[in-house]
Every structure is written in structure tokens, then in C-alpha cells.
């Protein structure tokens, strides 16, 4: 019953979304309000039906309805309760359902927010968003139906991919997809602005908050993904330049560029064409990412399965890129800049440089990701470029971006005087150099780390100096320090929200630099009772024990870790044997600290427990990545608060 109900709801939702897209566009052309209302009702109807799909799927998962193929493949009777819920988006078909659902929610919010406020742009925005939603529903209808019926009905299912049975998998896809789908809103407004011919600053002002929200969720999704790979995969890293990671990183890069370049358009009426191109590119890259992960054209540890779905996505990508760039090109006369670049040492040119670097980084990541295809097409050999390529090219770019992060927000618009430069940057530059010198004296020899630290201190210095001066100015009007700071943050929330996001990025940068330079690991085979030592830690192997869990068998090691200073700590890394997997899955045990995390990964072992191989990783400053994520959250929240300065 559920397969038929679900499929029916999917098809109906597709028809509604398609009709809504057409009706909204027709109403914009003819001005008939009834059509627009019909389009809105279609949007609501599509949302209701997709929600029903999700409810049906959850019901099927919770009741082990193996007549639904997706349920049979992604769960079995032993799958714990939580993972029966997250299995909903654990594989290809379900991930598209989640995607559509989020997109339908964004569409509803747009309807509620803008139906009265933006009479001219709104019908087109609705049409574009429903058109995109219709595409995802089409995918759910033809190449990747989540409600495929399975006959005969098996007694038990296959079970969820064990790597996905982790708390990170509850939040990572949700955050990532909220980011991906979120960029649909600014894209839809950009398209509407092009169609209507209102290519000024309006669409940018309207979508500023939307862009921040999408950007924030994308950042969060990337960070949680790093957290997941760190403590589930057990290879000691949070980032591997894997094609699928790159697929999520590229829209983040162009989205970041877009967030910055729109400020120049708002302020100086420049870069109109560029901003439109950037949002098209960002949205296109979110679709490209989905295409890459689901088409199977490039091998990756994260890939979903293959099938005709890739053709659908490529077709849609072609439609989006050709359609929107043609639209852009047809409006080219209207997109001439009104302002001009007055001088090189200005905020405008710093922002331009920032954009150039971000787009260059996007290009290199794109190039590296599709390189296997390129080399096969040209030379007939499939060659992958690995982390060394990405690091070599991108590290200098990211260092340059850090530098610009310090300069950009504080240098004057139009023309910076020597006095402006000295006032804002002299002290931070000195602070950065002193910090690097101190670290050097303390014995840090890694040039890259020293450069990164100097830049981080410099940028933090510029932010601190600016904040200090602004608070001091407010203090003159009688507030105490706390009230002055708080008032300032709320009053200039956009500016200081941005600064706090920058601080978050600085903290993350410290984490990246520190962990790359200082993390160590060692793998040894220990007899029971024997110890090994690494970086001041002693690890003693105390024995193994076996247990039978609901959906797997587990061998747990007991290791006592001491580090001289404190007493011993007992860690339990394990290996899980899932019947449906060829290779066992490591369950990493870890202790997180401010400067140091320790991770223990159990390797091979003797079944009598007499000896075991264990890998100890001492990962330094990785926690700063997660800490930076928290700071980022505060900054983004502050930046999207209603503008206090705007008269009510």
C-alpha cells in the first residue's frame, strides 16, 4: 500500500509544482491575479504532498515495511531507532526527498514573505522556485523513485551503510542540504530581476539574509562532515579533497565571493554583471554537486549509486546554465557599472581581489575534481590529482584571502589615504609580526604555520582595534563597557556579525594550520599488557572482549592511556562486524581537548586477545575547527537580525 500511496503523492506533487511554475509565469505575463493565486496554492499543495511522502517513508521505516525497496535496502530489523529515521536520507532516493522537502519549505516561506511586498519580482521568483522543485520531483518520479515496490518481500532488509550509523549523519546532510537548497532563493530572485529588467540593487538587498542563511548552513554542513570523517573514519583527517567534499566546497567558495561582492554593488553600483554571474555559478555548482555525487562519473568514497539519474541532472544543469546565462547576456546593456574604480588601494579593489582569489580557488578545485575525466578524454588514461595538488595551489590562495580579510573591511572606499592605512593597520601588522617572532623563538619552525599565525593575529588585531574604537566612542555617550559593546553589536549588526564570522574563520584557520603542522600518529602491534608511547602519551593494551549488538557483532579493545600528568583514562576502540559488509568498520574512541585530541583506532587483532594493532593519533588543535563553527554561528545569527538602523 505504501509504495502506491507514496508514488501517487510524488506524481501529484510533480504535477502541482509544474503547474504552479507555469501559472506563476503566466500571471506575470498577463497580470491575472487568479493564476498567481493558483500557483501559490500549487506550492502549498506540493509541500503538503512531499511532507506526506516523508511521513509515509518514516512510517515504512518504523514498521519495517520491506515491500518498499528503499526500506529493505537501507534498514534491517536490527537497525536502531534513530538510524531508521536518518536512513530516510541515507541513500540516493531518500536524499532527493529530503532535498525536495526543504526546497518546498523555502518556497513556502518566500510565498508568505513576498507575496505582498514584491508584486513585480514575486511571480517570477515563485515560478523559478517551483520549476526547480518540479525538476527534483521529476527525479523522484522517474530515475530515482523512493517508493519502488519490492517483490517478493524479503524477511529482512539489507541494513543502512554502517558508516552512516553515526550522530554526525543526523545533522550533516540536513545542514548541507539546507545550504544547497537555500541558494535557490537568491538565484530565483536574480532570475526574476533579469526577466523583469530590474537589475539594480533591489534583488540583492532582498536576498542578503537568504544568502547568509544558505552560506551559514553550507559552512555548518562542511564542518559537521569534517567532524564525522574525523571520528568515524579514523584516518585522522577532516578533509581529503575527495570529489564529493569538493562538490560541496565549490558553491561555498563562490557563495562566499557573492556575499562580499554584493556589498560593492550596494555601495557603488558596480559589478552588476559579476554578481549575477556569481549567483548563477553558485546555484549551478549546487546542482553540479548533486550531479557529481549521484551520476557515478567520478569515483568517490561518498558516492551514491549510478543509474539514469545522472542524465537527468546533466540535462537540468545544462538547462540552468544555458538558460540563465542567455538571460544574463540578453540584459547586458542594463548591467553596465555606474560607479568606477577610483584607485587601487581601496576597499572596492580589495573586495575584487577577494573575489578573484575565491573564484580562482573554485576553478582549481573544479579542475582537480574533473581532472580524471579530462585526462581520460584527452590521453585515454584516468589520472586523479590528489591532496598535494589541491594543497599546493590553494594554500597560498587561502593565505592571501586571510590577509584580505584583515584589510578589506577597514580600508577606505574610493581612495585610501596614508593616514587611513596607518591608523587602521599599523598596530595589527606589528602584532602579527610580533606573534610570528614569538612563536619562532619558542621553536616553531614551520614557515606555513608562522605565516598563518601572523596573518590570523593581524586580522584579529584589525577587528579588535575597530571594535575597541567604536565601543570607546559609544562610551563617551555615557554607557558602560558592556552596554556600549552590546549596543554597538545590535546597532551595527551587519558589520559586526560579519566581523564575528571572520573571527570564526580565523579560529578555523588556526585549527587547520595547527593540525596540519603538529598532528602525529603511530601504529603498533601490542601484546596484552604491553605499552607504546607517542608525544608524551603511554597506551597500554589491556585486552579484548566480544559482544553481539542488535545489528552487528563487536570486538572491543580496552586500552589505558596515561600522559604522565593526569591519571589513566580507559578508551574502548572497537571493530564492528556487520553481516552485510565485507570489511569490518572501525569504531574510533577519542578524548577531545582544547589543544590536543587523542584518537585510538583498533586494527587487526588475534582472536584470543593476546595481541592487537592499534593506531594512536594525537591531533592538535582540531577542536578549534568545531569551536570556529560555534563562533561562525553567533556571527551569522547576528548578521541576519533585522537591521536596527532602518526606521521602522
Amino acid at each position: 500500500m505504501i509504495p502506491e500511496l507514496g508514488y501517487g503523492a510524488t506524481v501529484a506533487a510533480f504535477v502541482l509544482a509544474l503547474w504552479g511554475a507555469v501559472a506563476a509565469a503566466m500571471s506575470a505575463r498577463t497580470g491575472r491575479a487568479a493564476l498567481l493565486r493558483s500557483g501559490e496554492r500549487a506550492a502549498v499543495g506540493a509541500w503538503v504532498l512531499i511532507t506526506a511522502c516523508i511521513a509515509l517513508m518514516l512510517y515504512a521505516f518504523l514498521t519495517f515495511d520491506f515491500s518498499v525497496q528503499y526500506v529493505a535496502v537501507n534498514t534491517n530489523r536490527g537497525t536502531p531507532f534513530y538510524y531508521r529515521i536518518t536512513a530516510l536520507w541515507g541513500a540516493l532516493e531518500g536524499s532527493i526527498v529530503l532535498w525536495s522537502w526543504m526546497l518546498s519549505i523555502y518556497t513556502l516561506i518566500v510565498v508568505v514573505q513576498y507575496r505582498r511586498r514584491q508584486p513585480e519580482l514575486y511571480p517570477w521568483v515563485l515560478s523559478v522556485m517551483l520549476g526547480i522543485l518540479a525538476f527534483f520531483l521529476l527525479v523522484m518520479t522517474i530515475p530515482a523513485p523512493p517508493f519502488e515496490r519490492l517483490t517478493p518481500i524479503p524477511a529482512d532488509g539489507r541494513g543502512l551503510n554502517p558508516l552512516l550509523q553515526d550522530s554526525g549523519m543526523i545533522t550533516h546532510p540536513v545542514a548541507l542540504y539546507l545550504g544547497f537548497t537555500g541558494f535557490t532563493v537568491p538565484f530565483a530572485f536574480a532570475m526574476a530581476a533579469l526577466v523583469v529588467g530590474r537589475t539594480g540593487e533591489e534583488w540583492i538587498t532582498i536576498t542578503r539574509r537568504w544568502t547568509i542563511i544558505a552560506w551559514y548552513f553550507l559552512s555548518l554542513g562542511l564542518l559537521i562532515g569534517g567532524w564525522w570523517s574525523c571520528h568515524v573514519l579514523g584516518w585522522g583527517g577532516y578533509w581529503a579533497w575527495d570529489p564529493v567534499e569538493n562538490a560541496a566546497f565549490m558553491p561555498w567558495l563562490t557563495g562566499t565571493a557573492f556575499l562580499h561582492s554584493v556589498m560593492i554593488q550596494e555601495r557603488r553600483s558596480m559589478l552588476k554583471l559579476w554578481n549575477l554571474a556569481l549567483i548563477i555559478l553558485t546555484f549551478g555548482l549546487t546542482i553540479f554537486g548533486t550531479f557529481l555525487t549521484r551520476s557515478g562519473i567520478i569515483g568517490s568514497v561518498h558516492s551514491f549509486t549510478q543509474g539514469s539519474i545522472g542524465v537527468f541532472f546533466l540535462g537540468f544543469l545544462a538547462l540552468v546554465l544555458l538558460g540563465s546565462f542567455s538571460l544574463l547576456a540578453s540584459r547586458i546593456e542594463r548591467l553596465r557599472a555606474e560607479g568606477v574604480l577610483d584607485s587601487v588601494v581601496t576597499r572596492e579593489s580589495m573586495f575584487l581581489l577577494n573575489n578573484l582569489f575565491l573564484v580562482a580557488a573554485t576553478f582549481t578545485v573544479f579542475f582537480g575534481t574533473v581532472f580524471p575525466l579530462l585526462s581520460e578524454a584527452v590521453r585515454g588514461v584516468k589520472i586523479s590529482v590528489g591532496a598535494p595538488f589541491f594543497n599546493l595551489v590553494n594554500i597560498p590562495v587561502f593565505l592571501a584571502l586571510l590577509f584580505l580579510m584583515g584589510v578589506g573591511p577597514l580600508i577606505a572606499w574610493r581612495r585610501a589615504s596614508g593616514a587611513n592605512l596607518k591608523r587602521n593597520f599599523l598596530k595589527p601588522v606589528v602584532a602579527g609580526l610580533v606573534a610570528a617572532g614569538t612563536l619562532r623563538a619558542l621553536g616553531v619552525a614551520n614557515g606555513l604555520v608562522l605565516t598563518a599565525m601572523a596573518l590570523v593575529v593581524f586580522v584579529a588585531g584589525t577587528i579588535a582595534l575597530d571594535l575597541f574604537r567604536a565601543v570607546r566612542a559609544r562610551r563617551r555617550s555615557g554607557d558602560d563597557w558592556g552596554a556600549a559593546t552590546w549596543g554597538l553589536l545590535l546597532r551595527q549588526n551587519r558589520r559586526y556579525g560579519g566581523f564575528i564570522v571572520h573571527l570564526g574563520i580565523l579560529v578555523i584557520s588556526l585549527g587547520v594550520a595547527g593540525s596540519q603542522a603538529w598532528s602525529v600518529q603511530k601504529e603498533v602491534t601490542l601484546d596484552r599488557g604491553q605499552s607504546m608511547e607517542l608525544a608524551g602519551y603511554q597506551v597500554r593494551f589491556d585486552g579484548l572482549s566480544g559482544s553481539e549488538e542488535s545489528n552487528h557483532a563487536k570486538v572491543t579493545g580496552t586500552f589505558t592511556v596515561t600522559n604522565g600528568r593526569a591519571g589513566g583514562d580507559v578508551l574502548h576502540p572497537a571493530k564492528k562486524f556487520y553481516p552485510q559488509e565485507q570489511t569490518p568498520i572501525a569504531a574510533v574512541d577519542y578524548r577531545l581537548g582544547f589543544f590536543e585530541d587523542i584518537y585510538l583506532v583498533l586494527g587487526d587483532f588475534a582472536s584470543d586477545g593476546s595481541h592487537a594493532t592499534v593506531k594512536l593519533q594525537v591531533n592538535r588543535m582540531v577542536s578549534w575547527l568545531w569551536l570556529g563553527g560555534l563562533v561562525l554561528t553567533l556571527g551569522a545569527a547576528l548578521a541576519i537580525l533585522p537591521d536596527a538602523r532602518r526606521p521602522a
Partner: protein
Amino acid sequence: MSTSRLRWVIPAAVVPVLVLLAYGFRTDPREIPSPLLGRPAAAFSLTTFAGTPVSLEGLRGKVVMLNFWASWCVPACYEEAPALERTWRAYKDKGVMVVGVDIQDKEEAARQFLARFGHSFPNAPDPTGRVSVDYGVYGVPETFFIDRTGRVRFKQVGALTDEIARSHLDVLLKEPS
């Protein structure tokens, strides 16, 4: 550049990228040829669920279709199961032996699977996983076609169909032993 020219150049710029991606469909990153093809098949001797021994050595002179499966393998093993039985019935008198190897499974579930599809060819569990390792089984189902001289000749990854089984078996049966 003139405005009218830009109108074409801007959208045309994305075409090469799209063509490259479309080219990707022609290739399969996971297609790794089995190094076993043409090599002598690894010997095995197992005990079937029915309790009788089955070994590759004892099947010399026959064409062997060696199928790796598991009861939790949804849906591919369920899809191919009827085709396996049909192939067995059609070819058992022509010098073909079908052997199923059940890997990483629970015995109870495996027996239910066999009963459901009424498999009449020998099926044996691989309790130590030794056979699946020797054949480099990456996932289930995988099917190996072994000729009369004991060499692996074809490998099918994913669900087997009547047509695929027939095409491989007919080739191997035509060869002199």
C-alpha cells in the same frame, strides 16, 4: 567585444564543461577488470546446507557457474535468484554445474532464502570467508564462470539474468574440454 557577440559568447562558454561531463557517462570509474580472468580458479571445498561436500576439484570437466550471494542482499540477490534456478534446470544435463556460496550470513536466514526460491543446485555457506576472499568478491551478488579446464573466464557483478548466464555458458560449452 560587441554586445551582440557577448550574447552568444557568455552562454556558449559553459558548453565545453557540459560536453566533458557528458563524456563522463561513457566511462565507469568502478569498472576494474578482475585479475582472475583467464587464470586457474582457486580451489575450494565446502559443505552444502544439505550436508554434502562440494569442491571445485570434484567438478573438473564441467562448466561451473559459481554464484556468491547472501540473504541480506536486497534487492539484487532476490532479483537474480529465479534466474539462477532456471539456468540450473536448463543446463544441468548439458555439463554445467551451478554452485551457490552464501557469504557473511546467518544460517537461519540463508535457509529461509533457499526455501523461498526452491533452489535445487548445491548451496554452501562460507563460514570462514575464505572462498570469497580467494575470488576477490567485492560485494554480492557476483558470479564467476569457470570453464572445463578450471579457468575463470567471465565475471558478472550484480544481478545475473537468464540472457547473461546463457550467453556465457553457451560459449564455454562449445569449447572442447
